[in-house]
């Protein structure tokens, strides 16, 4: 794992959110989990609830954490009517931020979902896809009962919480449970280039290639960005059947 050591870059919404959740976990003598990230986000962002869905295959997701009943109801609602902001966010690959389901245009966008969400007591929903390029990890959803958009400063914090959730889910996939620091390797272009290269070398899907890269970085206790640099500079090749050269 890598930490951001630099003083100036250390004061970002991401690093502040990370310190906040770590401190909260520390008080409870616990570690940061997807659930604790959700609880921290709910309190900090002033939203009614949060939901984390993880991708289980192309087009399918399942609820991993729901902080309240409404979060579960909303997730079920989307499955039932086959439309909604979560589905839209997955299709677009970008955040979908709805400050008011009653506002003009929203019921045209989701004619079935929007009125049902309002009926269930939710007027605002903020959906943030958790993905690394085309690697689809899941979605985080925050909801508000009142028709109030997320204030700009809080929106930046919501994105920071989403990024932390993404990092934690990725770590879990390769069996890493450490929470010492935030790994900022995802900001490195070489990590994404290496993912594409490994997908071609192993002839596997992009998410499997990304998992293979991260598993190896973890096994060798090396930062992901270091390993990626070796792949891009052709010092390291992944071979099918688990070998490397």
């Amino acid at each position, binding site marked *: 794992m890598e930490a951001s050591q*630099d003083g100036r*870059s250390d004061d970002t919404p*991401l690093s502040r959110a990370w310190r906040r959740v770590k401190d909260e976990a520390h008080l409870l003598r616990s570690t940061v989990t997807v659930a604790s990230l959700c609880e921290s986000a709910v309190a900090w962002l002033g939203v009614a609830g949060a939901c984390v869905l993880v991708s289980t295959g192309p087009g399918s997701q399942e609820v991993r954490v729901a902080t309240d009943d409404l979060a579960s109801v909303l997730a079920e609602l989307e499955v039932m009517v086959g439309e909604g902001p979560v589905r839209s966010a997955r299709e677009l690959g970008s955040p979908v931020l709805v400050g008011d389901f009653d506002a003009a245009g929203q019921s045209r966008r989701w004619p079935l979902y929007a009125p049902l969400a309002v009926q269930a007591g939710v007027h605002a929903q903020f959906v943030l896809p958790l993905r690394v390029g085309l690697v689809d990890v899941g979605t985080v959803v925050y909801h508000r009962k009142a028709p109030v958009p997320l204030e*700009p400063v809080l929106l930046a914090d919501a994105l920071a919480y989403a990024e932390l959730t993404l990092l934690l889910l990725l770590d879990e996939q390769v069996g890493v449970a450490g929470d010492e620091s935030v790994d900022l390797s995802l900001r490195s272009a070489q990590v994404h280039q290496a993912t594409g290269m490994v997908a071609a070398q192993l002839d596997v899907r992009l998410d499997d290639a990304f998992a293979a890269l991260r598993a190896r970085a973890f096994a060798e206790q090396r930062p992901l960005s270091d390993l990626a640099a070796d792949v*891009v500079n052709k010092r390291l090749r992944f071979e099918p059947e688990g070998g490397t050269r």
Partner: protein
Amino acid sequence: MVQVADGQLVDTFVELADTLTDDFDVIDFLHLLAARSVELLPVDAAGILLAGPSGALQLVASSDEHVRLLELFQLQRDEGPCLDAFHTRNPVSATDLELDDAGWPSFAAAALGHGFRSVHALPMRLRSEVIGALNLFSARPGELSKENLQVARAMVDVATIGLLQARTIQQHEVLVEQLQTALSSRVVIEQAKGFIAERLNLEMDEAFAVLRRFARNHSRKLSVVAAEVVSRSETVRDLFRNPPTR
């Protein structure tokens, strides 16, 4: 200093305006803008960085895609003119890095190592918010002339308009959605570059050129083609069978 010929400037803005159609690709547009910046201004490299969700600057387009140049842009997450321009909301210049590292020791050393003596960063502003920066590098020391600075500012404004697509973005939410989409597209393009580089045994900048040429030749969006490459769609089979030649 090289003076910009008015005709060339007009042509560039016409070309940029032409790409601002309903179906335009934001990364492709910013890439064109970076390439034209190098032609119109006395600089040798240009890049456009956007502020990511957690406040970090990330490169989305550059005048060339050499790995070492990309590293130079990436370094500026920690220090450098773009970070300063982002924080101060004003243009930042270092006119001779050999004489003065301007408070960025690592960045200055890397830039000099790449053969650059002067560097400029202009913030991209939307009302009260700074959303990114245009970064210009020159092999020669010196500042940008008043005229050149005006051209650079115009490029920055056009980049901002292109990025935000809509003429007027009323809501902060839409801005965030657009920025996130642009940053995410760039990641997909990096993944596609890696895939192409491996399959066709190319360097990363060559892989990008192949990707871009294929998208142009088929009148398709760069980010859509990149996504099809990594998901191995049938629609891009020709890219690997008959790769576009240089």
